[in-house]
């Protein structure tokens, strides 16, 4: 797919996870900056969605089209659900939930790349 977008998402997610891990180590609960940071990641994920849609029109559908679409959509809801679950927890473990959610996204993005590459267009 468009690799610069994927790499940007992965780098930002790792940075977000590291930052949240640091915050959890300092015994901080999830706060507004974490919500804003998640918004940045979500923005990049929407860009990825648009790029993927455009590229499917240009290059054709990947072989595993349904799986590809499922991954594109699931990756969008991971962090909002993580935030929802994290913000209600008034301890460092809420922040740890964000670390976990942020680390799931790179895995899904890599799977998306794999599915796209497997098409061989």
């Amino acid at each position: 797919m468009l690799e610069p977008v994927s790499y940007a998402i992965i780098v930002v997610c790792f940075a977000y996870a590291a930052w949240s891990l640091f915050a959890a180590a300092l015994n901080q609960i999830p706060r507004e900056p974490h919500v804003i940071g998640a918004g940045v990641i979500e923005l990049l994920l929407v860009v990825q969605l648009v790029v993927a849609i455009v590229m499917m029109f240009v290059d054709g559908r990947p072989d595993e089209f349904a799986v590809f679409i499922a991954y594109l959509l699931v990756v969008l809801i991971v962090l909002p659900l993580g935030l929802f679950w994290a913000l209600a927890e008034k301890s460092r473990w809420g922040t740890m939930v964000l670390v976990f959610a942020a680390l799931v996204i790179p895995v899904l993005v890599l799977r998306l790349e794999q599915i796209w590459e497997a098409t061989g267009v």
Partner: protein
Amino acid sequence: MSEPGIQPASAEPSPPATNTGPGRVLVAVYALFAVAATSRAAYQIGTKFDDAPVPYLLSAFAAVVYIVATIALARPGRTSYWVALAAIGIEMAGVLTIGAVTAFGVTDFPDDTVWSWFGRGYLFIPLVLPILGLLWLRRLRVTAR
């Protein structure tokens, strides 16, 4: 645990709260595996069930176990505690059995499940998860006294 002001003061003994503290992260991980295992099983059964019915049914079974464990852990209360314990116990037995069967080649497993090779395809998290889950439930039981 001992941080002040986290739990609201309550006169009656609180039921085991499996969904706060470290349990918060545990529920998140379980939820992810519930989604992953369910989608994987649905995909396998929906597109190629005849290739390997038994592994795909095991995939579906694993999915159900993860869903039950997620919900039971996410809800406070005694009943949920025991449901969670049963589900995670079954999960532990499942990942050890399926892991051993696939790793030592007792029978042919044409396609992987979440538990194949002790969850190798998922960074061995399926093997670690029930251990953490059982430790978490055991710790709650100790602190509840």
